[in-house]
Structures are given as structure tokens and as C-alpha cells.
């Protein structure tokens, strides 16, 4: 299985006032194509920082990240943005739909950024797939939490990404809705062969993935699978 994400000796330090705060310390792991991968750990263990770095949302001076064959830290901000647009999908804990765009408009933004023609038709298909075909003209504020996360899933899979990063995708949802979203996430993962990297507190969710790592104080404490 070819490696879609390679993280090697990654460290991240933040300057906090007069002190340095070491958030990640010599972290290395790999994720293969179509594989599902979970990053677990308590609050403050560095999970979200690691996800941000893997997706090219932030940079560091120590270590390397190879995403889809590209060394992320050799690209500038716009280069990383292009890489994300072509290969990466996102699902956030608080959904992060653009509040001024309708459900359909939110879904097709990544497609339009790639210059895909008939983006609206594809967007409608995706909304149908997540069961929201009747809600395409609704704004995020008019949708429930579960519906918003389904729109976010449709958006994340819109450009058929090679890898999808999900930050606590069910963290803001009740158990029943959360389970439905998890099922949909894995279903799309299988269907499109997209690698899945999930940051979560939820050990049950982590168990559903092919591999996982547990972080504590910025270090890998345990690797499973």
C-alpha cells in the first residue's frame, strides 16, 4: 500500500510569554492510501496541532511531513492551499460551514476552486448521498447540528480527496446523530478509497479505524495496528 501521509520526527514548540511550550515531540507515523487512522489522547496532548501540521495548516522547523508525495514544508502557503484543494478534505468538530453560503454553495466551494464545470450538479448528488437533497437552499443557521455535519461531509468528499482529516467529527453531536455521521464517514471512506485521519477522544470511534496512535504530552505513547 502506497503511503499517502508520512510524518517523520515531527516536533512543534510554541513560545508562550517567556517560556517555550513543547507541544509535539519527535512524532513519526505513516498512513497508507484508503487506510483509516485515528489520533487519540487527552485534551492538550497535541492532537489538533498534529492534525493542523499534517494538513499543511501550520508549519514547524523540526521534522518533515510528506503529503501525497510532496514535502509540505517546501511549499509556500498558497502551494499548500493548492495541495489541499486537490487532495485533502476536512471535517471539523464545529462543522465550520461558511455561514453566509447555502448548504449547496458550501458543498461546491472546493469544486469551484478547482474550476470543475457543472459543480452544482455534483454538489446536488453529494447532498443526496448524505440525505439532504431537500435542504440545498438552507443556510447553516437553518440546519440542525447533525445536518450541518452531513453538509460538511459532503463538502469534504466533494473533490474526491486522497486523504480526509476529521477533527472530533462527532464531538458536538448527540450519540445517535454521532453514530450516523461515523457510519457515513466510513462508508464514504470505503466507497471513494479516501484515507481517513481522525482526531478523537472517543475510543470506540478509534477502534473502528485500521490504525491509531495515542498521544500524551506531545509524544506517541502507544501505536495500535
Amino acid at each position: 500500500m502506497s503511503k499517502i501521509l508520512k510524518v517523520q520526527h515531527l516536533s512543534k514548540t510554541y513560545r508562550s510569554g517567556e517560556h517555550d511550550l513543547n507541544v509535539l515531540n519527535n512524532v513519526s507515523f505513516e498512513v497508507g492510501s484508503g487506510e483509516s487512522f485515528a489520533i487519540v489522547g487527552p485534551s492538550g496532548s497535541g492532537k489538533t496541532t498534529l492534525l493542523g501540521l499534517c494538513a499543511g495548516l501550520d508549519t514547524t522547523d523540526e521534522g518533515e511531513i510528506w503529503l501525497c508525495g510532496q514535502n509540505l514544508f517546501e511549499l509556500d502557503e498558497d502551494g499548500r492551499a493548492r495541495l489541499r484543494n486537490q487532495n485533502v478534505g476536512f471535517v471539523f468538530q464545529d462543522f465550520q460551514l461558511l455561514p453566509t453560503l447555502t448548504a449547496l454553495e458550501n458543498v461546491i466551494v472546493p469544486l469551484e476552486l478547482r474550476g470543475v464545470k457543472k459543480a452544482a450538479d455534483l454538489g446536488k448528488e453529494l447532498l443526496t448521498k448524505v440525505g439532504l437533497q431537500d435542504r440545498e437552499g438552507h443556510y447553516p443557521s437553518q440546519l440542525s447540528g447533525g445536518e450541518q455535519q452531513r453538509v460538511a461531509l459532503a463538502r469534504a468528499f466533494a473533490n474526491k480527496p486522497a486523504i480526509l482529516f476529521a477533527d472530533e467529527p462527532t464531538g458536538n453531536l448527540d450519540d445517535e446523530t454521532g453514530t450516523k455521521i461515523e457510519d457515513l464517514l466510513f462508508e464514504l471512506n470505503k466507497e471513494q478509497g479516501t484515507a481517513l485521519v481522525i482526531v478523537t477522544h472517543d475510543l470506540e470511534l478509534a477502534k473502528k479505524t485500521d490504525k491509531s496512535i495515542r498521544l500524551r504530552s506531545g509524544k506517541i505513547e502507544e501505536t495500535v495496528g
Partner: protein
Amino acid sequence: MGKHNTGFSWLLKMAWRDGKASYGKLLLFVFSITLGVAAVVSVQSFSGLLKENIAKQSKALLGADYLIESDKPVNDKVMGIMDSLGGADAREINFLSMAAFPGNNGTKLMEVRGVEGGFPFYGELETTPVSAVNDFRNRGALVDATTMLQLNLKVGDSIKLGAVTLPIAGELETVPGSTSVFGAIAPPVLIPFQFIESTELVQTGSRVEYKYYFTADEGQDMAVLGEKVEPILDAEEADLDTHLSEARRLGRRYENFGKFLNLVGFIALLLGCVGIASGMGIYVQMKIKSIAVLKCLGASKRQSYLIFFVQIACMGILGGLLGTAIGYSLQQLFPILLGDLLPVDVDIVLSLQSVLLGLSLGLAMSVLFALYPLMKTLYVSPLQALRVVQETKSRSKRATTAVGLGIVLFVFSFSFWLLGDFMRSLFFVGGLLVVFLILTAVARFFMAMLKKFFPYSWSFIARQSLKNLFRPQNQTLVLVLAIGIGTFLISTLYFTKDMLLEKAAIEDSANSANMILMDIQNQQVDGVSNTIKASGYPVIDKIPIVTMRVETLNGRHVEAIRKDTTSQVSRWILNHEFRVTYRDSLIDSERILEGGWVSSVDADSDVPISVSSDFADRAKVTIGDAVTFNVQGRIMNTVVQSIREVDWSRLQPNFSIVFPSGVLENAPQFGVMTTRTADDKGSAQLQQQLVRDFPNVSILDLKRILSLLEDILGKIGWVINFMAFFSIFVGVAVLMGAIYSSKHQRVKQGALLRTLGAQSSQILKMIAIEYAVLGFLGAFMGVLLAVLGSTLLAYMLFETTFTLSWVPFFVILPAITLLVFALGVGNSISIVRNSPLSVLKKEKE
């Protein structure tokens, strides 16, 4: 790796999608820019139309293609020139004189115009009845229609001008060559030319104008005519006026006023832009999460920046278009506001130039002022989508400086385009920058001091309100700027108007005159004096006047100076017949600037004279310089002994040249007397008696002139206030924008406070205190800056002392504070209307 595949259409689409959900906020930006553009477009377009209409109607204003005029009977040489031009088509003699109306004992100072020939050749002599246009030419008079109404005269009544009595043939509605402003002081009366001599009113000292009207051949070039004839006419103390030069002269007179109004409008626009800059800052702050998400989804820095750039550009274009439409409608009001101050009827049309001006101003100003806050979008990290991160990158210093310079350069270029003068534009932009900087400094200083000396012992409500003034994303700076500049403008205009009126006002003391009697012949002095005293009024001043012309300046004959093309000496000095007085002391309106005053002389040596500063400036003479005068044929050598500053705006006889006593007493002279009448009835009775006994004496009723001046200043003041109120309107728009932009934050804060137990009334009190403080601070600074600005204007422009008027402090300041308070509280009521749960739930979502 490929480039982003999106084009401009996607940016437009995204800008539209985002914009339609935020249209409330964006419309406030549009509103701010619209009013400013409307102010500039209305004035600029109206000035252009006025100029165009003056040019179009220039022949009708003059009544002919060109005329040759002189203040003395023309000599053979001028006659020869006129003959070479084909001879005059019509001629006119005019002067000011008292007219008596025997039917009702009325009297009035009028401009007597004796006309002959087919005048006017262009424009119309409008009369009631229409047939009077021809009827009066044999034996009759056309009397100004307003005068007829005021004095209750009717066609067929008589008018007595000196020794001649004529029947009134008709009411004169309009006549080319008489301006309505001057016409209000001395309205016109037209009589046949042949009766002028028999009026016996053309005497020593009478100011008489001789005019010869010409119609030009088709295609005759007025400029060429001017070049050929003017130098010869100049030498003979005559002038050529073509319809083109008349249009230019009139155009210039209104241009300055237009430029001033344009600047007032431009300030309103700048104020709107300050609102845009501040509103955009808050708008971008609210969009940070969205920008971060867009970047997560793969949008580049440029793309996320351009989405909002396109939005603001569209708002600018929309504001520009709406502003142009409103400006076009507004200019319809100017003819109503200015009334008969306008020399021509102005046809209001919408020009392409106005539309382009409005569009480009709306676009350029909104984009320029939004650039700085928009730069923030470039530095939003996509990581913000995952968590709150502290901003590490600040705006590039180079880009910030470039934006600042761009704004200053644009404002300067536009001012230069409006004013056409480098230094004035520099002063305008500099002055504006100083006002902006002072207000900014005061707002910042206020916040810093409040933070440093925070009154921790005050009540919870007071402390919370004061904290709002320096919390993050506070509105203190932008509101102090908007309120301060609006108040500054209104107060400065008020102070200036007050200053001008006070300068012109007649002192209300027993010693100051309210009536001036002119053209009193030497033999009439005792008679006039006795008539005044017999009516029970004092003769305050008896001023002797001798007419003379400059013969040489420092030994050079005026003829030689005229021929010298490099000479800086004004034509007024070389051609004018000066009215000179002699006395032994200075009067109230004079102050010695240089040299020393000489009260009297006996010797036959050069006479030490005193000249006004503008005479010295225009004649290029200074202390000790020799000036020779031709005093009605006798040459008199003088030397400049002192230079005086003369306050010409005082309604009293003032003189450019004053001789000491003991020199001119025996020269042919006439006189001016001043008196003070008790009331209108007494004034009318005295005037009737004087006109009956001394028909050549002209009487100026200063009370009437002052009320006329007040009327003119009132009309101009209306237009200025109208424009200044634009600044207040824009200020209100900016204020509402600022309140609206920060509403989200206030709603959340209000909901949290109420959750913790605060009552609605307590929250409203907090808001009320905050806006009252902001309103007072901004308005107070505005009035203070206006005092500073008006003092500078008084010393530098009006050359007078500044007298403080209390109205801005006791009326404008509380009114604006109240307005800000009411708007602030009124717009915040919805904050306490929403239930805390619904607000917090919405916040969570």
C-alpha cells in the same frame, strides 16, 4: 502542481453569495459613500451647469456682442476706434440717483439708465405691459417691478429724476446688464437717452458710466478684437467688454463659492470613507473563521482577499451610482435656495461627466479606504478553522505605508482638481490631516487615560460603560472622528457667518451713522446740513471729496507704465478716477501699518499723503515714494508718508488716499455727509425732503443695505448649512454603521450579563452612558477645533479679530450629544429584547 483554476467569475459569485447574507452591513457602507458622493456630485455638477449656462447666455447678459465703456465722456480717439468698428449700435449713460415719486411722496436710490438705439440686441427687456418696451422710448420710464410693488406705484404714475418728470410706461421685470444683487440696493430705471441731460444730475463728482453697445459680424473673433482694441482703449481710459469676458468674469465670481462648497461636500465624502474603513475592519474581523475555512478548502491568500475586495468595489460602484442619482436630484434645490443670487436660469440636466465622477469617486474612495482593513485577510491562518490562534503576523509596514500614501495622494489630487491651486490644496489636505490627527490623538489619549486612571470605586453600571470605551473592537476612535468632524464643520460655518455679519453690522451707538448722503455739491453743503438738523437729526460727518487721477508713479508717467508690458502696476491705479478726502486724523476703520500720520501741512513742498495697503500693493509704492496726481487739470506732487490698513467691510465712507488738511481745501470738491435717523418713518421723511430740495444728492440707507447683506448671507448660509448637514448625515450613517457592526458583540455581552442577573434597564443605562460620553467628547472636540479654525480664518483670511459666539457651545454641542445618545440607545433596544437563551443558543450554533 497546477495553478488555481478559478477565474474572476468565481470571485464575483463568492462575493455575491457572501454579500447577500451580509447585505444589512454592506448597505450601511453603501449609505456612507452615497451621501458623500451625492454632496460632491450635486455641487460639482451644478457649478458646471451654471458655468455652461452663463457661457450660453453671455450675450443676453450683456445685451450685445461687446461694449466699450468709460467713466468719462469718450474722446475723439475712442470715437475714431468706434467708427472703425462700424459705429455703436446703441449707447447708454448710467448713474445712481435718488428718484422721487410725486404721486405718493416715495423716494428711492435708483440706477438711472438712459438708453438709445435698439438695446438690448440679445436677451429680453421684459416689461408689464409688454408694449411698454417700445412705449417708453419716446417719453417714459420703465421702473423696476419690485420697486413698483414696494412703493405701491402703477403704470401711468410719475417718476421725478432731478429736473425731469416722466410718466411710468411699464414695470421692468428684467434688463440685461443689471444684476439682481446690486439691483436690490439701487434698482434700475430705464429712460430715453435724450432726457439725461435735462435731469441735470450729471454734476461734479457724479459717478457716470458711458456705454456703447455693438453687435458683431458673424464669425468675428472677440479675442482678436480684444487684442487689437484693448491697448488703445486702455490708454484713453476706456474698456472693452465682450460677451466672452463677461461670461468669464461672472463664471469666476461663482466658481470660488462652488469650490468652497465642493470642499465641504468632499469632507462629507471623506467622513463616509472613515466609516467604511472602520466598518470594514469589524466586518473582516467577523469573517475570519470563514476566511480560514476557505483557506482550508484550498483558497489562496489572493482569492480570499479578492472576494472581499470585489464586494467593497461593488459597494463603491453602487454607492457612486446612488450618490450620483441623489446628487442630480439635490441640485434641483440649489436654484430655490440661492434664488436671485444666480445670474442666469440654470437648466438641470444629467451629464455623463457627473455620472463618471460619481462612479469613480465611489469606487476609488471606498476601495482606497477599505484596503487597510482588507489586508488583514491576507494574514488569516487556516489553522483558525481548527482553534483560536493568536495572530502572529502583522500587516506589512511597506504595504501599510503605501496604502496611507495612496489615500493622501488621492485626496490631494482630487482637491487639486477641485481647487486648481497647488498651495490651497496643500493647505486643505494639511488642515484636514491636522484635524484628523488631533481627533485621533484625543480619542487615543482619552482611552489611555481612562485605562490608567480607571474609576474602580464607581458603580458597576458606570464602570461597565466606561470599559466599553476601550474594550477590544471599541468604537471610540471612529465615533470621535465622525462626530468631531461633523461638529467641526457645522460650528466653523456658524462662527464664520457670525463673524462676517458682525464685521458688517452697524454699531448700535448714538454716534454711528445709519444714512450716508453722497454727491453733495459745495454750494449745497450748508443747505443739506440745515435740512438734516431741522429734522432733528445730527450731522455726524462732513466728508469733503476731491476727484483726481494718478499722473506719475516715482517719476514714470502712467502712459509709459501702460506701455511697459513688464510693469506690475494694476490697471485700476492707472485708469481709475480716485475720490480722495482730506482730514487731520484717522478714523475707526483705519490703522497705520507703516510710516507716520501727518495731520496737516502748510508748506508748498511735496504733500505727505496716506495710502491704503491695497493701493500701495497695486501701485507698487512704499513709504517715501513719489506719486503725482492730476487734480482736475492741476498737477500735484505728493509723497507716500504712511500706509493704512482699511477695513472696507465697514458700512461707512472709506478712502484709498487721504490728504492732510491744508492742501485741498480750495480744490473743486463735493461732499458726503452722514447722519443717524431715529426710525424708518423719520428716515423716509428726511429722504423725501432731501430729494425735493437737492435732487442730485444720493442717499444710502445703511439699515436697508445691512438687511440686504443679511439676506444674501442668509441665502449663502442656507446652501453652506445644507452641505454641512451632509457631513452630519454621513456622520449619522457612520454612527449607525458602527453601532450595527458592533451589535453582535453587544447582543452577546448583554445576553451574558442578563444570564448573570443584570436587568434590561441596567444594560440600557450602560449603553446610554457610553454613547453620551462618546457624543460629548466628539462634539466638544469638534467645537474646540472650530474655535481654532475660525480664529485662523479670522486672522488669515478675513483679517479681523475672532469673537466667540456661544451658540455652538450651548446649542450645537448639546444637540449633537443628544443625537448620538438617541441613535445609540435607539439602535440598541433590540439587545435587551432578545431572550438570553436564544442569543446564547444562536452563538453556540
